[in-house]
Each structure stands twice: as structure tokens, then as C-alpha cells.
């Protein structure tokens, strides 16, 4: 991590902790790396299996920060799918990020456009989840953007390094060790503080039930998107009822 750069001025009128919040974000995501790194190793291995060069793999790791969409792209490309199909598929897979961006509007709306774009580029499921947990626990945080950037880079940089290692060394994690389970465990830990009222509990239960049914049966992670939407709809409906009563 490079030292703070004093030549970068803070925007006037906003409390900015310099490197404090980025570092807190990067530290917060450390536990999830245990689950993320094995996935990145496997992705690097898949890149080589599907015939990508080291340069192509490296370029793709940095141009698109979204693991599932990368797996889909290299598979479809290797199978000779036309560009339009590949783009449509990855857009579908990443559609959840459009909903994430909707809920990030209150956090990012005062930022300049280039910084919002940078956040969109580096965000991941993991850094989004940790950022929303921070916003819930610490609503007065004056530098949520810094936290988001730190959390996102804290996931992405080790991820990209592990893709590179996986490409050259193969899948070096023994498959008998269920490290993939750490990812849902971290999301569970971040979900717990969200379950504060009836609406959000119902929203989570609906999304969970729908995901169990839809994720294995619908292609391209559309099941995940449908489950997310179902959870939001149920939450909003319950909320409306409560306000009407």
C-alpha cells in the first residue's frame, strides 16, 4: 500500500479521512479472501484450459471485474459463440449490479462522475455487501466512498493476483477442503444486521426461498436476479401495508 499523497486535495465541505476509510474497507474484506482466492485460482485455470494466452487472461482480469461473467465469456468464446450472444449473456449475468448501483445512489451522488465510474468499475458482490453493512452500522460515516473503494480494491487486487497464479500453477487448492463455503458464511454475517424489521426479514426469506428454487433451474444467473426482485417486491408490499394501516 503506497503512502498517502498530500498533493491530492480533499473536496471542500466534506469530511474526508484520507486513507482511513479506504484502509478500513480493505481490512473489512480480508476474511472473505479465504473464499474468493480459491475461485480466482480456478478461474485462472479455466482461462488456460479454454485456450486463452497469459496476456488475454491478464487483460480480461483487469477489464472486467466480475468472475461469473468472465467464466461465461471464455466458455462461449471457446465454443465459437457470436459477439452479440456473449455480450447479451454477460449483461444478463451482471444485471444484479444495476440494482446494486441503484442502492448506491445515496452514497455516491455527491461524487464527481469519474469517481462514480471508477466505483462502478471496481465494485464486486463482496465489496458491495461490506459497504452496505458499513452504511447500516455507521450511517454517519463521512467517507463511505473511500470505504467502498478500499473494500473493492481489497477484493480485486488479491483476486487478480490469484487468477494469475491459477493460470500458471493450476488449481492448487485440494478440492476436499470446502473453502467455497466461506463465501456464503461471510454473506450470512453481513445479512444478519440487515434483519431489523418485518419488511426486511420477509424480503430476505422470500429471496432465499426463490433463489433455492430458481437459481438451479434458470440459466445465466437469471434465477438470482428473479429472486432478488421477488424479495424487493415482497418487502415493498409489506412496507406499503404497514404505512396504510
Amino acid at each position: 500500500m503506497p503512502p498517502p499523497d498530500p498533493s491530492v486535495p480533499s473536496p471542500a465541505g466534506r469530511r474526508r479521512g484520507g486513507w482511513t476509510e479506504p484502509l478500513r474497507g480493505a481490512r473489512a474484506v480480508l476474511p472473505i479472501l479465504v473464499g474468493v482466492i480459491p475461485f480466482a485460482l480456478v478461474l485462472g485455470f479455466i482461462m488456460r484450459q479454454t485456450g486463452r494466452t497469459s496476456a488475454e487472461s491478464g487483460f480480461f482480469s483487469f477489464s472486467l471485474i466480475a468472475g461469473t461473467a468472465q467464466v461465461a465469456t471464455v466458455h462461449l468464446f471457446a465454443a465459437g459463440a457470436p459477439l452479440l450472444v456473449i455480450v447479451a449473456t454477460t449483461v444478463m449475468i451482471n444485471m444484479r449490479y444495476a440494482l446494486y448501483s441503484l442502492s448506491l445512489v445515496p452514497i455516491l451522488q455527491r461524487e464527481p462522475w469519474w469517481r462514480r465510474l471508477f466505483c462502478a468499475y471496481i465494485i464486486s458482490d463482496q465489496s458491495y455487501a461490506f459497504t452496505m453493512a458499513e452504511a447500516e452500522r455507521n450511517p454517519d460515516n463521512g467517507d463511505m466512498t473511500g470505504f467502498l473503494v478500499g473494500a473493492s480494491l481489497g477484493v480485486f487486487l488479491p483476486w487478480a493476483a490469484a487468477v494469475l497464479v491459477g493460470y500458471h500453477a493450476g488449481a492448487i487448492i485440494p478440492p476436499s477442503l470446502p473453502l467455497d463455503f466461506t463465501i456464503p458464511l461471510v454473506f450470512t454475517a453481513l445479512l444478519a444486521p440487515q434483519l431489523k424489521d418485518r419488511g426486511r426479514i420477509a424480503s430476505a426469506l422470500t429471496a432465499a426461498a426463490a433463489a433455492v428454487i430458481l437459481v438451479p433451474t434458470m440459466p445465466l444467473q437469471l434465477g438470482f436476479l428473479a429472486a432478488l426482485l421477488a424479495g424487493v417486491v415482497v418487502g415493498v408490499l409489506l412496507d406499503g401495508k404497514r404505512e396504510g394501516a
Partner: protein
Amino acid sequence: MSFFAVALVVSLASLVVKGLFTCFVPQGRLPRALDRILRFIPPAALAALVAPAIVYAKTASGSTFAPARLLAGLGALVIAVYSRNVVVTIVSGMALLMLLQRVIG
């Protein structure tokens, strides 16, 4: 078509999706009632990410129901509600899973 070109187009299209509401939809146009919807996106997204990952295990032949993962995941949820701590949840969830895998396979 070269893979670099495909990767570039795919990445730019995904960037538009990832920043759709923060960068590409004019901010003044978002209605205030939206706040009521936004509240539900994090819990619904997290629940939808967690549920399939604890109910099923990925095997070479696809996804299969995994009772040990489900029980360990539910146990971890209870621990998460009370501990409010990511590391405690990971360690106890993994311990539960390895224990349950030994007991019920």
C-alpha cells in the same frame, strides 16, 4: 474476431450495467419514493446469494442437495445474529460444516 476485442466490448457493456444508476441515469430523475425500494436491495441480494450456496453443493455432475451445508449455514446465521462478527461466523460455520460432514456425510 480476437479475444481482446470481445473482452473489451463485454467489459464496456458490463461497466454500463454496473454504473447504470450511479453514472448513466440522470440523478435528478430518480423519484424520492425510491428510498423505500432501496432498503430491500441489500437483504434480498444477500439472502439470494446465501441460500443456494448453503442448500446445494457443487459437484462434477451439477448441484446436489447438501444437508450438512444447510444445517451449518443455519447454525452460522444464528451465530451471526448474536455475534455480529464476520470472523466468528466464518470460523464457527466452517467448524460446524466439517463436523456435520463427518456425522451425516
